[in-house]
């Protein structure tokens, strides 16, 4: 007991303040049948990172998640798999409007009944099996029930820690239609499937579910157990197939003799991605100017060489600060007037952290163009920037001059001038012959 306390204290003392980039207030909607103490590892982990947790049961009227059209919390966690009703303020519409306001959601699906969260999941391209069909797996052979399944997380996923031990899962799997905004965080094992039968006598039912008249067979590693969704407004929503993934029991359960499961670290990584700690980028500054200048031009002329620079930062959760990030190798810039006229790579500038720059020649079409940077990658937050700039045709004195084809004209004009000066000089300087002639004539 003392050792446990000491370990917890030490954990607190050395805990790095992994804060979110969008705020620290978290509302946890925990249904009464779930005991907060059974999820203490997860909640304590969040508190250690610096989050401010507020607990509430679904039926309570306050604190509300949204009031007067203003989001009251930065993040909302809903662990209520057995509650049909989540209170007046929590409806699918209010959850979606929270997402558009930038609040992140961590939602647990219910394996047993059709809850609000289950019906909301369909809007996010997730296809759930019928209620009452949890995930089961007979592989590998183990002494836990078939509904408690060990799953190995992918070691290549950018949002998860590397080399995570297998994770215990119990809940419902879901299929998903192709959607680039969906970020699968944990896929089901290849041998697992969803079934409501609990003995070998149900073999025929399993076969018939895949028939034409059946509801369908959810099986294989294309199913997801934990899937995140990156909305275009920047907020993130994660759907988890079951609440037990976060429980202390699964965190302490061993996957092999002497080897604890990876649940504690995995749910911490999932919360870090959902609460916008990891894989979050933002644009700090956008600059454009002609090649030998520093100030942006009000307009550019066709065929001008233009330099475009963008500064990008990534959020560092351990420091709780934005740091310049030069790790993007495939950012592209589009120079667009209705359609992209130019699409070119925007490489990082070596020696200048966070700066990406490209020089290009403005098209010889005049009009109102936009510098468009639209960087979207699965799992990362989106970078979007649009800068409008007019391109004008050259002014009357910006055309090329002194062309070799015009030499005859130049020479002709100059020759005319010289002729005029010469004539004037001769006339002014000349003699008055007329008088002499007249005089000889009169003689």
């Amino acid at each position, binding site marked *: 007991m003392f050792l446990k306390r000491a370990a917890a204290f030490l954990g607190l003392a050395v805990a790095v303040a992994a804060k979110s980039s969008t705020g620290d207030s978290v509302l946890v909607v925990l249904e009464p049948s779930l005991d907060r103490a059974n999820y203490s590892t997860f909640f304590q982990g969040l508190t250690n990172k610096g989050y401010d947790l507020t607990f509430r049961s679904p039926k309570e009227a306050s604190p509300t998640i949204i009031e007067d059209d203003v989001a009251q919390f930065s993040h909302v966690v809903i662990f209520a798999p057995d509650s049909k009703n989540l209170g007046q303020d929590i409806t699918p519409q209010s959850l979606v409007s929270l997402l558009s306001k930038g609040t992140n959601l961590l939602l647990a699906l219910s394996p047993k009944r059709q809850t609000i969260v289950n019906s909301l999941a369909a809007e996010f391209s997730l296809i759930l099996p019928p209620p009452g069909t949890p995930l089961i797996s007979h592989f590998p052979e183990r002494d836990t029930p078939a509904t408690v399944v060990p799953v190995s997380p992918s070691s290549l996923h950018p949002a998860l820690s590397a080399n995570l031990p297998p994770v215990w899962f119990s809940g419902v799997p879901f299929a998903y239609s192709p959607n*680039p905004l969906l970020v699968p965080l944990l896929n089901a094992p290849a041998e697992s499937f969803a079934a409501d039968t609990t003995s070998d006598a149900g073999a025929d039912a399993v076969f018939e579910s895949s028939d034409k008249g059946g509801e369908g067979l959810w099986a294989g590693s294309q199913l997801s157990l934990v899937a995140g969704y990156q909305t275009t407004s920047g907020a993130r929503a994660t759907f988890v197939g079951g609440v037990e993934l976060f429980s202390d029991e699964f965190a302490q359960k061993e996957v092999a003799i002497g080897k604890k499961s990876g649940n504690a670290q995995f749910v911490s990584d999932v919360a870090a991605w959902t609460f916008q700690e990891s894989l979050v980028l933002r644009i700090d500054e956008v600059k454009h100017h002609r090649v030998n200048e520093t100030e942006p031009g009000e307009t550019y002329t066709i065929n001008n060489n233009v330099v475009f620079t963008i500064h990008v930062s990534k959020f560092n959760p351990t420091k709780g600060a934005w740091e310049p990030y030069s790790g993007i190798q495939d950012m592209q810039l589009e120079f667009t007037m209705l359609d992209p006229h130019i699409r070119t790579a925007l490489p990082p500038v070596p020696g200048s952290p966070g700066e990406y720059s490209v020089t290009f020649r403005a098209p010889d079409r005049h009009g109102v163009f936009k510098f468009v940077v639209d960087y979207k990658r699965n799992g990362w937050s989106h970078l979007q920037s649009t800068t409008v700039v007019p391109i004008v045709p050259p002014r009357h004195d910006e055309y090329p001059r002194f062309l070799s084809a015009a030499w005859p004209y130049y020479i002709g004009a100059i020759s005319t001038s010289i002729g005029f000066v010469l004539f*004037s000089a001769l006339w*002014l300087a000349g003699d008055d012959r007329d008088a002499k002639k007249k005089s000889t004539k009169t003689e």
Partner: protein
Amino acid sequence: MGLATLCLFSLAAVGQVLAGQLTVQSPRLSVIGKDASIVRSEPISLAAVNKAAPVHLDSTETLKLAFTVVAKDKDPNVESKNVQPHQTFVRFYEKLSGEEGVVPVRVTQNGKAKFELNLARPPAALPPTPLVQNKTNPLSVSLLLGSYSHSPFKLELFDLYLPPSQPAPEHPDEKTFHPQPEIQHTFRPAEKLPNRVISGVGALLVAGGPWILLLGLLSHITISLPYATSISILPFTLSLAAFEGLLVWYWADLKLGEVLAYGAILGLITAVTGKTALSKRGAWRVQGAQRK
């Protein structure tokens, strides 16, 4: 890796409540051609080293798998019995794209199972096999047997090559989540100028022709310029030359405002010198007329 260790340790350390190990007996693979001719028929070996050769299936052929599911007791003396397991799946998996499909197999109460794959009526779960660089990638086919009362069983069967199919459907926005092809703008080619030699010859003709003519004709008459350097005439001549110079300077360098400013100053000077010069010229003409 973690799952394998789990298998090993749980088998060793924890007492098994499962009553036997599932396995298949006399598994057989056959490929039937379009007129019921047997293209290939062979038993499948349970040893991994004897994995069956890849199966190439075209649209007229049918793949058939037949086997019997038995549960082998730990005690070798006890006979194995035919069972109907909870899970009998044939799994198709394409490693490169990650596409996967799981098709359940109906097993009778006596453990007899038959699986048929006919491309005229393919199962909905069959993964797509699009052409990638002019060939289709193989699907690795495996058999999964799972049960609540027996230990599970997995067997890698063979690699299956199917005819090309449509690719898996993609979300329309998917291509914006990857680098898109670069677009270069085709600029209008720079205007072509005629050969400089031609321009030079033209310039010489324009300049030379009239001047040669003029100077030639002038040489035939005697020119006397008595007043050329007269103090009343010379400034005017110089101002006129300066005006021409200003025009050439305007053409080369100046802006309108500047040339108008300089022109105004020069104009004043020219007006003054011109008045002097022209009145002097007039006076000399009258003098000359009076003398004669």
